[in-house]
């Protein structure tokens, strides 16, 4: 019964910013749907058809022409609105479906509300899928805006963002026949409309109701695929009561708040697809476009691309770079006689390099998506535990490879949960310790060279050495902690079995332990550092490479083989004195350099390369790894730095310990990329690392 109305077309028109092609397309679609609505006034439909005709001429929207074209669209829409309105007032018995949006679409009492989410048999699946992606974006924006409103209730722009989200979801879902979604969104829209019109203050239960409306909509949107698959998912328990509260916050708001399930939102949150996890992704049209932080997603010209296509593109560009590199090295091309050819190839080379940079940039997305979700987690956890916490975020526009955003979600959640649950003290304890009652959790994201740093700082009590030790001993992870340094004790929280899946599930909804989180990070060449001062708080730092596709590597020679060592992992290289090497009983060779001792790792032995230097003074030592997990790797020669496109080793070779993959070098031969951490680990556990990995090339 609820259908797209002329108001939806107006809203879409309002959302059109100059140059925003996507928004214009949305406007065009809405107008077109209204044109085909036979219940609408005939003259209104004609006017709308005129608007569609204008919108269908892309040439008219180029550059300065756009303003005039939009003005023409506006005139047609005005006529249509006039016709609909006078038609409605003139007709004694108005068609219920032609009523403007203000008419209650689902004013039905809660009892009459649908109990399941159903989809019309003739639904256009492609359109629905488009809608889902769009709705998720709107909800993310709305959630961010609502959190923003908590600290600044007067922010009209933020209120508009929220309104626009509810409004658009209502319009499109109604058009697609998703009645349950449309009905609920309508209530939410109504309330926000009243806030927007200063009729209702954004205070008391209102902010909470709005946030919960976002939650319910997320659950509804997440349930649509199941409905599409032929199922009939049940509506959330809150659906009816919250709908009623939204339509009349003054009367029903308090009652709804009282019956609110305490942790429902938290438990549901993970099941809601967030930006990083959706099958589709938004890619900024231009690098700078993503910086317009506050505007609704419609404000930037965006194109949706399937991520698998995007990944394939990046992969193909990688192949192209390699193929081109091989071509460049070809004797025919390098032959000075072929001057013309060489020039053309060089030109192609330049284009290929640019293409490579560009394609890698395509996969870069801001961290914002992953962070927005955390604001919510902090808010809910703080409320539940009776703590006062200010969550400060900076650098959320920092861009990283899409796959890494996904990867960050779990560790960030763990870190935030840890900070709120264990870090920040209850207000009374804080006051006693001479701190402000309100604790601060600060999340900072920044780019440092080709790495991304995400730091989570809390000003709570700091990690409690004794408590961690007690738990670790209890869990049988260690026997005694007497001789452990603080850093080593803090590291224990990553140990397998330290954080129980049970405790983790409470927030994340997944039974993923800290050890798994850590392993995933390391697999992506990431690392974690924990710093903590008793009474002053803790800082967790996650460090990740910007992208996984390209590795800055040091090319080294061992015998006749060449290997690539990620430059980020190399601390320094030096030629050792013969007296620097000491053989420690039962442990193997150690190098004494600059006041410290490092295990000596003869790469050729580990990788069984023949013909390499045996005498330490004839080779070069490379110090790799971090902290006490460092080793000095002996190689024959450093061949120089170069960027390589990392590729997994083929199926035939499989996973080889100590190697992360291969890369095709300039001359077309394969160079293997060393997994520094795995080598160090193998060395630590084996003593001499005599048989770690086999050279696969």
């Amino acid at each position: 019964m609820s259908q797209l109305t002329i108001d939806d077309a107006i809203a879409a028109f309002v959302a059109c910013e100059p140059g925003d092609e996507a928004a214009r397309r949305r406007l065009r679609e809405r107008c077109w749907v209204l044109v085909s609505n036979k219940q609408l006034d005939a003259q209104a439909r004609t006017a709308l058809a005129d608007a569609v005709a204008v919108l269908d001429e892309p040439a008219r929207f180029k550059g300065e022409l756009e303003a005039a074209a939009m003005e023409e669209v506006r005139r047609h829409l005005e006529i249509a609105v006039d016709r609909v309105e006078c038609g409605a007032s003139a007709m004694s018995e108005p068609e219920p479906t032609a009523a403007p949006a203000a008419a209650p679409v689902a004013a039905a009492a809660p009892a009459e509300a649908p109990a399941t989410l159903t989809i019309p048999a003739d639904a256009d699946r492609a359109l629905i899928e488009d809608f889902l992606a769009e709705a998720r974006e709107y909800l993310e924006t709305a959630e961010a805006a609502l959190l923003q409103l908590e600290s600044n209730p007067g922010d009209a722009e933020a209120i508009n963002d929220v309104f626009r989200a509810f409004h658009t979801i209502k319009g499109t879902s109604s058009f697609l026949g998703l009645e349950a979604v449309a009905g609920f969104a309508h209530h939410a829209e109504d309330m926000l409309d009243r806030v927007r019109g200063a009729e209702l203050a954004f205070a008391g239960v209102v902010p909470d109701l709005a946030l919960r409306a976002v939650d319910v909509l997320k659950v509804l949107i997440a349930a649509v695929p199941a409905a599409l698959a032929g199922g009939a998912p049940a509506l959330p328990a809150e659906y009816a009561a919250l709908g009623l509260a939204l339509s009349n916050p003054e009367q029903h708001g308090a009652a709804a708040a009282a019956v609110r399930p305490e942790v429902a939102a938290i438990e549901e949150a993970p099941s809601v697809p967030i930006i990083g996890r959706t099958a589709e992704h938004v890619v900024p049209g231009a690098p700078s476009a993503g910086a317009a932080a506050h505007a609704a997603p419609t404000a930037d010209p965006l194109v949706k691309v399937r991520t698998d296509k995007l990944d394939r593109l990046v992969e193909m560009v990688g192949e192209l770079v390699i193929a081109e590199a091989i071509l460049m090295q070809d004797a025919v091309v390098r032959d000075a006689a072929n001057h013309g050819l060489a020039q053309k190839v060089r030109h192609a080379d330049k284009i290929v390099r640019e293409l490579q940079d560009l394609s890698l940039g395509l996969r870069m997305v801001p961290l914002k998506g992953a962070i927005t979700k955390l604001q919510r987690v902090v808010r809910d956890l703080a409320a539940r535990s009776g703590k006062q916490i200010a969550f400060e975020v900076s650098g959320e526009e920092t861009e990283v490879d899409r796959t890494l955003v996904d990867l960050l979600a779990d560790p960030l959640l763990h870190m935030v949960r840890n900070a709120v649950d264990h870090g920040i003290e209850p207000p009374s304890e804080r006051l006693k310790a001479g701190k402000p009652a309100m604790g601060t959790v600060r999340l900072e994201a920044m780019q440092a060279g080709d790495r991304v740093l995400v730091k989570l700082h809390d000003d709570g009590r700091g990690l409690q050495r004794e408590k961690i030790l007690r738990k670790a001993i209890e869990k049988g992870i260690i026997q005694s902690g007497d001789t452990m340094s603080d850093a080593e004790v803090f590291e224990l929280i990553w140990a397998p079995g330290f954080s129980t899946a049970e405790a983790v599930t409470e927030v994340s909804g997944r039974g993923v332990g800290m050890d798994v989180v850590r392993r995933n990070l390391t697999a992506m060449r990431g690392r974690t550092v924990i710093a903590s001062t008793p009474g002053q708080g803790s800082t967790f730092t996650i460090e990740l490479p910007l992208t996984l596709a390209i590795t800055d590597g040091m090319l080294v020679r061992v015998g006749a083989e060449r290997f690539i060592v990620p430059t980020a992992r190399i601390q320094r290289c030096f030629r050792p004195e013969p007296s620097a090497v000491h053989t420690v009983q039962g442990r193997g060779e150690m190098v004494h350099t600059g006041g410290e001792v490092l295990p000596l790792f003869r790469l050729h032995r580990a990788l069984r390369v023949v013909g390499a230097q045996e005498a330490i003074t004839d080779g070069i030592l490379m110090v790799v790894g971090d902290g006490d997990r460092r080793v000095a790797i002996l190689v024959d020669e450093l061949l120089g730095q170069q960027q390589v496109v990392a590729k997994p080793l083929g199926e035939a070779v499989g996973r080889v310990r100590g190697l992360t993959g291969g890369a095709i070098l300039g001359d077309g031969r394969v160079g293997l990329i060393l997994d520094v951490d795995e080598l160090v680990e193998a060395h630590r556990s084996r003593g001499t690392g005599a048989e770690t990995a086999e050279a696969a090339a």
Partner: protein
Amino acid sequence: MRFLVVDDSATMRRIIVNSLDRVGYPDVVEADDGQTALAKFAEGGISFIITDWNMPNMSGLDFARAVRARADGAAVPILMVTTRSAREDILAAVDAGVNNYVLKPFTPPVLKEKIDAVLSVGAAA
């Protein structure tokens, strides 16, 4: 498992023997300098050596070298317990073939930790 404890200070020997007893190694032979210790080692049956460094007649370092030079002494674990804390000293001990190094004063848990570490490496190899 029989231990050989070498130290010129009777007090230190008592403390080491006592500590060993507490961490579960009651079978101990004592010597008060390197030469005596070498003779005791030659008698056989020693499976772990704990030695001081500074001793009259033969130092612990020379003693360690002498043990390593013997066919039956190449693999026996040697733990050096000493006050000598200079890095060159520690490296010299490494080169002489000791398996681990504990600085005095020590506590029984530390002693046990080092013994365990030496034994576990030996077991894995």
